[in-house]
């Protein structure tokens, strides 16, 4: 009996990510959700600009590459072209979704577009070499903040889940992490639910995944996962921020 194998929706090619990069885990979770819901043939993914730019090589469903940050806008168009049949998801990093693509994200959420957004938050610009991102923590050392992020000059991190939960539009917002086995299993449930919501025509679902970037954080993969526990999760608390169907509305946030 096979207990675990690579999901069918994940292509049989080596990933280009650095050793210990958790993008690979999230790719697999998305592919597992697609497999379990048996929607591979009618799923369209929208790839971002960033480390995950080549996600179109890794998923076996149809994929589109969007301009930087515009994945929710492209997904809106695709979804509206055949709303009863297509399942559309975007896979975006923090430089894509929380920086140049903030407007598209906020408005797709406000319109309650029936799409699924997978948002990878690793607090840094990975592909371009580790510059400070909108999600970088206060005091975090990056290539462009060698003395740590100074909130007086650079402002405070953007907390996407908290921000979108104030809108009336979105159906489901949850923040998960992939730094240990327990959290990965929770993340899998959340991602699957985000796809199920779309099948049930409930509306906009966004899953924020707290991820590691060992290379640009300058740590070993295992230290990077520990750093998530010690630094990222206290600043970005995990949990469901909005779930309209279950009656979870802002202010009644579930504890992680």
């Amino acid at each position: 009996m096979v207990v675990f194998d690579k999901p069918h929706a994940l292509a049989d090619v080596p990933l280009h990510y650095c050793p210990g990069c958790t993008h690979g885990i999230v790719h697999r979770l998305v592919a597992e959700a697609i497999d379990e819901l048996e929607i591979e043939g009618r799923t369209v993914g929208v790839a971002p600009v960033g480390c995950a730019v080549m996600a179109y090589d890794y998923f076996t469903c149809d994929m589109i590459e969007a301009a930087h940050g515009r994945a929710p806008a492209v997904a809106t168009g695709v979804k509206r072209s055949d709303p009863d049949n297509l399942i559309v998801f975007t896979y975006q990093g923090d430089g894509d979704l929380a920086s140049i693509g903030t407007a598209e994200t906020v408005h797709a959420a406000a319109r309650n577009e029936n799409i699924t957004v997978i948002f990878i938050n690793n607090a840094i610009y990975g592909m371009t070499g580790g510059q400070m991102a909108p999600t970088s923590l206060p005091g975090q050392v990056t290539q462009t903040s060698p003395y740590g992020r100074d909130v007086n000059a650079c402002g405070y991190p953007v907390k996407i889940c908290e921000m979108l939960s104030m809108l009336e539009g979105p159906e489901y917002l949850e923040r998960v992490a992939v730094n240990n086995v327990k959290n990965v299993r929770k993340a899998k449930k959340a991602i699957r639910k985000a796809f199920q919501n779309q099948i049930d025509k409930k509306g906009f679902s966004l899953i924020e995944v707290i991820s590691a970037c060992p290379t640009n954080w300058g740590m070993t993969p295992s230290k990077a996962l520990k750093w998530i526990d010690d630094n990222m999760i206290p600043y970005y608390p995990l949990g469901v921020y909005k779930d309209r169907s279950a009656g979870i509305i802002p202010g009644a946030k579930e504890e992680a």
Partner: protein
Amino acid sequence: MAKLTFRKDECKGCGLCVEACPKGILQLSKDTINKKGHHPAECTDEAACIACASCATMCPDCIIKIEK
């Protein structure tokens, strides 16, 4: 007892599976180097494996297949 299959040439030697294993039976091979130039993960004692799939859950490159 479970059967573990590693696609060794795709392993990047990050060691996340080694840390995730509750039985402590995984290690990065000290003697071999794969096509990518990494020390690939391997199992030292398959008889002790409980097929919990923790290693495969944490593997970013999906190189582990588990059968039982």
